[in-house]
């Protein structure tokens, strides 16, 4: 595609319905034999499993894309279990390729070239995630609110190979509480499709509790939805495949290629419940003394995310050379715009990690640091 062909699309309101993805998922579900997930029977599953401890970033999808956000939630969990401090995955390319189907659907064979020249052939439902991989939020921040989004980036090309699925998405052959418990007890969160007569949605099942006989799921509506972004289904609802007027439909798991650790930063910002509404912070990461511009890591342009808190892991700027030291400091710039809430908030965590080597900001040694509305604060590691 030439630049002249590309430019008109940047201004076009390209809306592709989620129903296309649901149809594709149903195709996966109908061809159950070759792609059904093996559900290992856990002889004595624990009384409770809560994989949400591995899910820090609660996504906000805006109007569409639940198929991607729920997938990234279970993928984030599996990455964090295999490789702590892995960056949160981005849906930038997922939304881009979803909306720009004309770039790959009509090709013979169907597929697309990434900027490094590789051709990624559509051999499965999650073909890009298997062949190219997935970029991360610090590199390609997901912008859910505009109709046109995404494009390849050079840094994305350099990192995506580290975040790939080992195989296509797999359907759980039998949907009931026993198989769900076995999946979760074996470290597999579940992507669950629900819906009604003329709508569909996907959430991430992340835990169960035998005593309460409930499953916990993560939605993608920010952390002010439900219980800090989470909801529950009872065992009976899963077994009966119905929750009120909602149908419990198909369920899927993934297998990941365990990622290698990369230098990353984890940041947690909280807005008080009392008087606070949605978070207003703007965040930038940079390297002290670097001539390169600060990297804006939050929020995405024109974001509608109404979450109260942000717990976010992003890759460090690529020019940063590990480890952080007094002559090689990582900088977090925080500015509270007070656009939605004038309470200010607290920075609870600012940590850099590379594998198990974790370095915290010394400014947080004695506890969270408060900031006020319209205030700019700068934090350093070390």
């Amino acid at each position: 595609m030439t630049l002249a062909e590309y430019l008109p699309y940047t201004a076009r309101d390209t809306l592709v319905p989620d129903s296309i993805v649901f149809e594709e998922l149903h195709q996966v579900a109908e061809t159950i034999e070759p792609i059904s997930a093996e559900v290992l029977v856990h002889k004595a599953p624990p009384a409770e499993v809560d994989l949400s401890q591995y899910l820090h970033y609660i996504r906000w999808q805006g109007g569409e894309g639940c198929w991607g956000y729920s997938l990234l939630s279970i993928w984030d969990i599996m990455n964090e279990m295999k490789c702590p401090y892995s960056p949160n995955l981005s849906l930038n390319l997922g939304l881009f390729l979803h909306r720009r189907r004309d770039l790959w659907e009509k090709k013979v064979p169907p597929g697309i070239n990434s900027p490094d020249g590789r051709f990624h052939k559509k051999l499965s439902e999650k073909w890009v995630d298997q062949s190219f991989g997935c970029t991360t939020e610090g590199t390609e921040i997901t912008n859910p609110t505009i109709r046109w989004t995404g494009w390849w980036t050079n840094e994305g090309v350099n990192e995506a190979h580290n975040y790939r699925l080992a195989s296509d998405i797999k359907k759980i052959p039998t949907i009931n509480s026993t198989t769900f418990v076995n999946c979760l007890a074996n470290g597999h969160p579940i992507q669950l499709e629900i819906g009604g007569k003329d709508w569909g949605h996907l959430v991430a099942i992340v835990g169960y509790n035998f005593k309460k006989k409930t499953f916990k799921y993560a939605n993608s509506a920010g952390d002010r939805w439900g219980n800090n972004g989470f909801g529950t289904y009872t065992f009976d609802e899963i077994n009966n495949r119905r929750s009120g007027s909602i149908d419990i439909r198909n369920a899927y798991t993934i297998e990941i290629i365990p990622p290698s650790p990369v230098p990353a930063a984890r940041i947690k910002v909280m807005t008080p419940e009392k008087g606070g509404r949605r978070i207003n912070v703007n965040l930038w990461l940079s390297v002290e003394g670097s001539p390169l511009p600060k990297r804006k890591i939050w929020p995405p342009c024109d974001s509608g995310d109404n979450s109260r808190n942000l717990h976010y892991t992003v890759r460090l700027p690529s020019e940063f050379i590990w480890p952080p030291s007094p002559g090689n400091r990582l900088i977090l710039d925080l500015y509270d715009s007070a656009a939605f809430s004038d309470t200010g908030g607290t920075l609870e965590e600012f940590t850099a990690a590379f594998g198990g080597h974790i370095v915290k900001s010394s400014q947080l040694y004695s506890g969270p640091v408060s900031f006020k509305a319209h205030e700019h604060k700068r934090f350093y590691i070390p």
Partner: protein
Amino acid sequence: MAKLQASWVHGSSVQMEREGYFISKRRTGYGAHFNTHGKEWFHFAIPTPVILDGQRASLKKIFVFYKTEGAAKITAVHVYDGGGKPFKKFDNLSHSGDHSTGVDKDNSWVITPVHSMGFGLGISVLVNFGAATTSGVPGILFVTAGADFVTP
């Protein structure tokens, strides 16, 4: 009488097999420094005098000067003559420490029998950086690499 010739490159020219942000890398005047976890291959391309004084040269010995940090250790060295499979493998190694300033038994490997070189010499070094640790990120500094060649 056999004639000797040696060829060396500086460590700053070493190439890692996989590019990515999972390797923290720094090239300085005194070598190339890498920090990461797990196993990674590094490759040296050695200028190769295939013909010396009208006669084909044979590889006699190779050298890789390095210094490890933390759990990192060299676990294999493979030697290539152009493409194809390595003609010599030194596997099951466990070399660590500072071997960056002079020739010793942990940074030099004798090729027996000598190998008549047809093309460019490649020395590939497998480094096992080890698992994630809380004390730091394992690393290796490559200072230089080279080879001794001999003609009949």
